[in-house]
């Protein structure tokens, strides 16, 4: 499994003091962040995941074991989860809170970049824009039904062109001619690219055109005429791509900031919110420890036959033991 260690200052920060853990399980990657009592990031890890959220979390925890001392697990005072699988992961690791990516991103970003007004977030399957004022969210939007312009689309195209996604920025920088590619729809964008390739345009120009199309698509379909005030922060996996960042700068006409922790910002936010919650309510964390990675969980599903809605009920069970979580029903008969 591909992993990136963004920060590891656990050794320097000593062996005592409270820590808070944040987990962000997205569609293509799992992010883990540990912060200390002063909200500083002491450990951050990103890993690409392909399995179910349960597997991804467990694998990430397994990898953690190598970089962490045993006592770290005992010093964790609160755990927060975020991402689309937040409730599932919360049930599995025994987290204290599960919050949406939107609020987590906002909390963490306004800590690292006080005064930030706009957060652009492009992840694997989701696009979001968050507008803030004086440290609180005033508005937000998400892509609704279309995945055009998300990280997965870029990934797919990189594969098609035979270029590693990490090199996209370098390639685009070498572009000399402006190539226009339709960004409204993934399918049309792809046929546009094929066409341009056959016309004899270079890969570099096509990649630059693609990045600009993605930025345009994002601004039209997600931001939809919202007023984007600077300072603007750019986050999520796609922020690693310098060509997209440049395309945004060109379209918006202002500086786009990418913080060095942009990959784990959501997880950091989850940890911060967990810290707040635990401190405010004097909670004792229900964290089950990093050894959760060794427990075997079985996700299962069935169709409830109670009424004509035929809800799909999903649940997670320990191999030997009880059901950890169950949801998916409209009426509340099964929810645990």
């Amino acid at each position: 499994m591909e992993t990136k260690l963004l920060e590891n200052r656990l050794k320097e920060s000593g062996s005592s003091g409270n820590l808070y853990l944040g987990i962000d399980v997205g569609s293509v990657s799992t992010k883990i962040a540990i912060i200390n009592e002063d909200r500083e990031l002491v450990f951050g890890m990103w890993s690409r995941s392909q399995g179910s959220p349960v597997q991804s979390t467990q694998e990430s925890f397994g990898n953690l074991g190598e970089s962490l001392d045993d006592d770290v697990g005992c010093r964790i005072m609160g755990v927060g989860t975020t991402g689309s699988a937040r409730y599932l992961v919360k049930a599995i690791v025994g987290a204290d809170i599960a919050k949406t990516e939107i609020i987590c991103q906002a909390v963490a970003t306004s800590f690292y970049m006080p005064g930030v007004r706009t957060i652009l977030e492009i992840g694997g399957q989701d696009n979001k824009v968050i507008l803030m004022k004086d440290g609180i969210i005033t508005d937000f939007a998400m892509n609704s039904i279309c995945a055009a312009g998300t990280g997965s689309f870029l990934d797919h195209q990189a594969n098609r062109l035979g270029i590693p996604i990490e090199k996209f920025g370098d390639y685009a920088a070498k572009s000399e001619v402006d190539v226009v590619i339709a960004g409204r729809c993934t399918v049309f964008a792809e046929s546009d690219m094929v066409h341009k390739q056959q016309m004899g345009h270079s890969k570099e120009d096509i990649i630059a055109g693609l990045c600009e199309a993605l930025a345009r698509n994002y601004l039209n379909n997600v931001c939809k005429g919202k007023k984007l005030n600077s300072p603007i922060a750019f986050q999520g996996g796609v922020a690693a791509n310098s060509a997209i960042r440049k395309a945004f700068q060109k379209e918006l006409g202002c500086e786009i900031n990418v913080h060095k922790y942009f990959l784990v910002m959501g997880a950091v936010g989850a940890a911060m919110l967990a810290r707040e919650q635990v401190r405010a309510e004097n909670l004792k964390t229900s964290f089950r420890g990093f050894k959760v990675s060794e427990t075997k969980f079985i996700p299962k599903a069935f169709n409830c036959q109670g009424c004509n809605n035929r809800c799909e009920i999903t649940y997670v069970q320990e191999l030997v033991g009880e059901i950890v979580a169950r949801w998916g029903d409209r009426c509340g008969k099964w929810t645990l």
Partner: protein
Amino acid sequence: MSEGKRLVAFPHMGNNWPAFKSLFENAGAEAYVPGKNNARGLECGLKFSPEWICLPFKITIANFIEALDKGVKTIVMASDCGPCRFGFYHAVQEKILKDLGYDVEIKCLLQADLLTFEWADLLQSIRGTRLPLSRFKLLWIARIFFMKLQLIQLAEKLEGKTRPYEVRRGETTKALERCLKMIDEAGTHQQLRGLKHLIKEEFAKVEKAGREKIILKVVLTGEIFVALDCFANQDVKKKLGELGCEVCMGISLYDWVKHKAHVNFHRKYLEYLSKSHRDIGGLQLDIGGEAFWVLGQYIDFSRGGIDGFVHVYPFTCMPEITAKSIITKWYNDGIFDVPPLFLGFDEHAGEAGLMTRLEAYTDLLRTKKKKLINGN
């Protein structure tokens, strides 16, 4: 089914079925109440609806097919000569059903102006007997209908107010079900008059927690079918309630019927509000759906008293999208400062996305309110 009585079906819209049931039964017909709207029914509705039509059309046609399969031959569908395509639904639906081979007659309940008493002809025609309904009886039927709608409105209001405080999840929903059953069973004025008290008691019985956490007050409004039917809006009201919001319904069928009988003065006021904001883009006339009044409500509520404004509509609903764009502009330009949330519904079942939006929205409102309370 008793001998000689005609079996009549009608669309299932939210919690309003007891009122319609009594309307047709009192007129002398037998009422068939379609089951609660559900995913299976919708699948069937999708199969026989035009692709670009809105969700209410798809759900109602599913109701009709269910009824027809049970032997119903007469269906009553509302119609309007308003500016949106809803006015043609009954005709198109009849054609679709006939093409499918059903022997069906869709009678149209013209709601454009209830004071023309066209509905009296409709009630007469479903009676199955030539014996005319007396004027006294007609007014009595209408009265019962009104009283039931009013009680349903009350129950829905209390439901929204009670849910964020409930200790055990689901109790409020159960209380609502009990109230609807009582409303359905009551048949006379006297019984209905007594119900008001019983409904309040029913919700008072729900065990409530203290008020230590911040409870938000949110308005739920928008296109009437989607706003009122909890299947169509994927239980938005319940979800908001469980996230700690008192949900105030901006719309009810009682409200709408009163409006069509020209006795809804609150709506007149909302119209005035929208009209008087002409300079910033307020609508000047009814463009269909609820757009005209939604704008009025947004202006009205922005003057205080609420934290959030949730606007729901079926995907492809022209009037509501117009209202949405106007409200978005007002909010972005800083003319009003209640954050709106817009939710368009169609057949998709993407619940995770809806939950993320609702959670983020309530978090947004909560931080805003906390800041207001703490004064910094």
